[in-house]
């Protein structure tokens, strides 16, 4: 990954985070869940898939599907930065005059399918992957699931069937932020040892830091080369990442913040980033 690429994706994630905070101040949103996967989505759009505002209806485009639909502010933040939607539209957050609500929907350019009910989109992505495979297309299909979403039985049905159908063009990414709603995953339904579970289904399993772009890059490069089995990436992430005052807090799944908090969080975000940048210099 070049310095230029790194800077680009880092800036994309930073600007998108600002948008998430702004949406949280316009009626509230699932901020904790959005900030855990925002680096992953930023990386996927800027470095891994070839999907942009000009090719969103092309037959051979790459696909990204967000199964944990409540993290949609992360997606919209990135969409507005990449030109899928006009930034001004985000001001319509929760307005009935627009379609920017708490879950993704196809009225927003770039959203491939609506989601919200957990445990659905793996199978939808499998259908897309099956058709692309049947047509011998070389495109990539990426589906992101939340770790809490793994409680759903339909996910495991899909995990089993995808492998049997040899849908190796499909890449599954788990946002392992260790929380589901306002509870720690391990205190509710124990997911670990998670890697072993997928290995038992004969998947190639990659575990990585979900916030460090160079590590993400290494992982996704490996996945691109592995075509012998299903591939799954477990990205360890931090709920509320980028805002230490919110990080890893069970009650910060959803937040409806005041304009004062908005200012405070935007400034916190900036300070954290400056500190990291100064360190790396």
């Amino acid at each position, binding site marked *: 990954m070049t310095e230029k690429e790194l800077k680009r994706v880092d800036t994309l994630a930073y600007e998108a985070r600002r948008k998430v905070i702004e949406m949280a101040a316009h009626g509230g949103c699932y901020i904790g869940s959005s900030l855990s996967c925002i680096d992953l989505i930023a990386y996927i759009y800027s470095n891994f898939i070839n999907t942009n505002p000009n090719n969103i209806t092309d037959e051979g485009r790459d696909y990204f599907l967000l199964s944990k639909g409540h993290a949609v502010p992360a997606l919209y933040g990135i969409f507005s930065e990449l030109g899928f939607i006009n930034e001004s539209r985000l001001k319509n957050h929760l307005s009935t005059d627009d379609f920017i609500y708490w879950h993704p929907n196809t009225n927003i350019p770039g959203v491939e399918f609506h989601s919200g009910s957990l445990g659905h989109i793996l199978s939808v*992505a499998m*259908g897309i992957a099956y*058709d692309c495979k049947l047509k011998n297309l070389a495109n990539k299909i990426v589906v992101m699931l939340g770790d809490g979403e793994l409680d759903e039985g339909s996910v495991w049905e*899909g995990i089993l069937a995808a492998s049997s159908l040899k849908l190796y063009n499909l890449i599954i990414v788990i946002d392992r932020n260790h929380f589901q709603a306002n509870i720690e995953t391990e205190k509710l339904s124990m997911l670990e040892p998670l890697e072993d579970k997928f290995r038992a289904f004969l998947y190639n399993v990659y575990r990585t830091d979900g916030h460090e772009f160079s590590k993400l890059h290494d992982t996704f490069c490996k996945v691109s080369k592995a075509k012998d089995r299903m591939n799954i990436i477990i990205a360890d992430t931090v709920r509320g990442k980028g805002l230490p005052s919110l990080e890893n807090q069970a009650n910060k799944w959803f937040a409806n913040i005041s304009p004062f908090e908005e200012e405070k969080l935007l400034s916190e975000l900036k300070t954290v980033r400056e500190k990291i940048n100064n360190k790396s210099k």
Partner: protein
Amino acid sequence: MNYEQFLEELLENDDRYIVMTSENRSAIRNLPDKIGGKFIDTGISEMTQLGMAAGLSLRGRIPVTHALSAFLTMRSFEFIRTDIGIPNLPVKMVGSFSGLLSEANGPTHQALEDISLMRGIPNVKVFCPADESDMMIGIESVLKSSSPYYIRYNDRKPIYRHSQDFAEGKAEIISDVNYVTILTYGIMFNEALEVKHLLGRHGIKAGLINFRTLKPVDEEIIINSLKKSTLTVIIEDHFTTGGLFSIVAEISLRRKKTGDIMTFSFDEKWFKPGLFKDILIYEEMTPLAISEKIYRKLDKKL
């Protein structure tokens, strides 16, 4: 031509079609060898099948999905509602062994609410052919529809020569609205036809209407029956709630037309498992039992 042969020919002529199942191959047993990659079996996983069908459909495919009605409409209900109904994708959902056709399997397998569930989803249409011949008359139009469709698969042998004139929302009029009018669909059609004959033998003129599609439904024929018949009889292998009885009730209220109605359906109960003929006897739904009840009801009115 049977259903399986029809699908094979359809796939040969139209690249968009895909045949899917969740390990229920009874009606499509020979297809895997013939259509290769166009046949997808997800294993016993109805949710995955229907979710995948949505994904395939997003890519321009027209998946024809198969499962036992009970599991297709109930196990994967939310996938149909959310992933197919909301975006109005043209997925076809073929449910087998619905209603009485589950015979001796027991209540776990009895789809007696499938029509209620499927018609309750906006955009989803419902096709309930009377027998194999009626199914083959309507199947092409249904599979080529741009709507999602639930198909109550019915391969009972026909005893009646059905009209080749099929149009969704248009009922087949076997004999027009009369003193008694029988409204029916699907598996109970042959029995309803027999009821009509039995009543006729005793001087009671009966009309018989075969509702090929229940959504959209032929509203005018229902209003006509309510207006002109002394008694409107509904015969269905479905719960009383949500099926044709409910459809008639909804239309009656909306159009402010009512009349005497008698229904033969399953009221808050599952049926006694057994072979088809024995179920009819046990549940007092043989043509003779139904005819006698109608006769008595009319007798009281006279």
